């Protein structure tokens, strides 16, 4: 601490005496940027439940149901046309999944939904073993990369050389038809469980847990949100394939690797747009943005609000993502530096969310006692 004690004592005396010396501070104090209503966490949670989570799962559910229908038709009578229809419905469901994976708290966390739906790269060898043996248990930790969308990616795009050969493999192998059905049905069951909770008792639990301690809804939501952006999006979709973590680029670790083409980047962009939308919410409605604004979080040097800085950074990282197109796989092979740059831009946003926003909200991440650092 600088030893400007004299100056400091003087300002303390002035502040104590007349409150005049820090009028700007106090004026600011009496005029909270916020009415109490904008610091209402229950309103934010209600918006999340009713406009983001529940309708999000609703839309995803209909895509998943469509995929299930196509899958049932395909396994009943495998044809190239049936495969292409199934693949189209898989693409649509996979894109829709990007809009709900971020909600990994409450019911989704209880069943580790993200682990069951989207851990890649898929364990192709394990999937083949499962098909051959006909016995597998999707609940096991080792089975995580043998199910979900990445497994379907392999089953629909990578299990044989071309569409005709893929169809032929389904015609030939009853076990493979059954495996495809089991993967799809497991996803359907898990989502049904999660939706049942949200449409049932959990919604009320969620919106009424208005604290900020570890385990409160805001803490679960913020931690899940930040973790998603940091781990699933920044690291999973870009950082790991670009070799940022290990020092060795690994393009084969991208999402939807067997499908490739434009889809992997579309998935990443959809995820990024989801993160932005979830932050900003609907215009004029309570959101993480409106709550952070109401807390008055800003860069005290420039006066810019934290939410503007976050949104600016979101825009930058979103633009950088676009530059990786159209084919992420070939971009990673030919100009990996652009992907590393994309990772770096997202990392800047991660920090603002994880440090500045979380600190402004005073959200706890652990239950352990703490006397203020």
């Amino acid at each position: 601490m600088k030893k400007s004690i004299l100056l400091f004592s003087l300002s303390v005396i002035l502040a104590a005496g007349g409150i005049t010396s820090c009028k700007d501070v106090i004026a600011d104090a009496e005029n909270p940027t916020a009415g109490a209503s904008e610091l209402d966490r229950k309103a934010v949670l209600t918006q999340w439940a009713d406009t983001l989570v529940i309708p999000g799962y609703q839309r995803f559910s209909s895509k998943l149901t469509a995929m299930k229908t196509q899958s049932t038709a395909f396994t009943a009578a495998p044809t190239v046309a049936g495969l292409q229809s199934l693949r189209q419905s898989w693409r649509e469901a996979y894109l829709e999944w990007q809009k709900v994976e971020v909600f990994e708290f409450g019911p989704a966390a209880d069943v580790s939904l993200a682990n069951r739906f989207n851990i890649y790269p898929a364990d192709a060898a394990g999937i083949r073993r499962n098909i051959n043996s006909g016995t597998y248990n999707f609940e096991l930790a080792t089975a995580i990369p043998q199910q979900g969308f990445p497994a379907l990616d392999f089953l629909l795009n990578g299990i044989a050389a071309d569409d005709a050969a893929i169809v032929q493999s389904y015609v030939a192998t009853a076990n493979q038809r059954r495996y495809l059905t089991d993967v799809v049905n497991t996803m359907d069951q898990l989502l049904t469980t999660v939706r049942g909770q949200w449409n049932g008792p959990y919604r009320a639990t969620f919106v009424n847990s208005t604290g900020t301690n570890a385990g409160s809804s805001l803490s679960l939501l913020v931690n899940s949100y930040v973790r998603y952006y940091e781990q699933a999006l920044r690291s999973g979709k870009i950082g790991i394939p670009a070799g940022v973590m290990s020092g060795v680029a690994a393009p084969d670790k991208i999402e939807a690797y067997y499908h490739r083409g434009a889809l992997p980047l579309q998935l990443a962009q959809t995820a990024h747009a989801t993160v932005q939308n979830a932050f900003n919410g609907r215009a004029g409605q309570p959101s993480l943005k409106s709550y952070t604004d109401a807390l008055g979080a800003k860069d005290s040097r420039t006066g810019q609000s934290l939410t503007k800085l976050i949104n600016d950074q979101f825009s930058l990282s979103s633009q950088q993502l676009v530059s990786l197109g159209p084919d992420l796989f070939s971009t990673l092979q030919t100009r990996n530096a652009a992907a590393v740059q994309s990772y770096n831009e997202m990392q800047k946003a991660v920090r603002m969310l994880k440090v500045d926003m979380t600190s402004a909200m005073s959200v706890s991440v652990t239950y352990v006692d703490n006397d203020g650092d």
Partner: protein
Amino acid sequence: MRPSYFQTYTPAAPLAVFRVAFGLLILASVVRFWAKGWIDELYLQPRFFFPYYGFEFIKPLGPYTYGLFAVCGVCALLVALGWHYRLAAMGLFLSFTYTELMDKSTYLNHYYFVSLAALLLVFLPAGNYFSLDAQRQPAREHTHVPRWTVDALRLLVGIVYFYAGLAKLNSDWLLAAQPLRIWLPAKNDLPLVGSLFNYPITAFVFSWFGAIYDLTVPFFLLNRLTRPFAYAAVVVFHVLTAILFPIGMFPYVMIVAALIFFPPEWHERLLERVRAVFKRPSAAQQPATPLVYRPRVQLALVTGLALFFVVQLLVPFRYALYPRELFWTEEGYRFSWRVMLMEKMGQVEFKVVDSATGRTRRVNNSDHLSVLQEKMMATQADMILQFAHYLRDYYAAQGVHQPQIYADTYVSLNGRMGRAYIDPTVDLARQAESFAPKPWILPFDDEISGL
């Protein structure tokens, strides 16, 4: 002629009450810690721990850590009962202090207070009255003790409050109402008072009241006229902090510790009531049997206490030996009664570079650290350095040639936008820990004036 201060005697009841209450609180603390599963979570699960500089040999004991806590709990109970008091007090001090030294990330000021109070209890005659020892060996019972023995505890409690108050005399606390301005709105869902927390003026009122309270309460507790009001303030203040902040047992420890300021008669009445509950004979008619130390023993004890308190008075000011902002560098921050002063949060990502190939990896901290450890490390330079050294050794064992470790850091303090904390170009693998200022901590570029 009035006897000198060091020849004055006072009833032993305050020491006895303190001993019993303190022992029971520590016992409760141990049981709570155990029941919450924290022994496992904090001392068994992590692969790496943050020892204190100079105490690197103090580590968790694997599954025997449970035994350590058991010893601590048993000693606390024995202290409360006054059974084999001296040995129990020693055991309590050693086991509790060992536990606190195992990992910096669990540092709490009130644990430090407990260690210091336990150390004092080893030397104070708190086991000679209202204790099983006194009952079993009546010759060792003493109804009165030298006055300085009670005043030593009062001085310790007084220092805690007063220094906590001094630490609040800074511009962030008084002129910006930080960090309460961040913390209070997070509690705006409390019944009745919650909505007040939306207004920064509330944070100002709390900040100023808190500072004045800490600075003055020991003195108001000393005075007979102000004592009841001061103690009421103690209870209200600490209950409020218990409701608002996740500070565990601290409020209760202080509520109990502040009883030491009450007059001996009050403590004696309390003990009489306890005796009545347990159907023990009243001590009202008991003849006075003061504990009179041999001059040499008294001199040794008083000298020891004087040294102890000189250290206590000076250690919190050691930060003045460091050139830069205390809240930012945290050089000299711990062991200084700086409680609830900062909202500090950070993120740190480590880069490991192979000196031979130049290959760069990034570390997933959570592969090595608990949530609490990672959170604590992210804002404290000495812990970042310790973890960097651990990573150096870990990756060297993995076959990385002379790993270079760089920290990419981002820290926010009291509502300021985050900024880089550690020089990202400095290879932490080659920096050594010491008490010297750490030149690789980047400048704060802002000023917090005050003490």
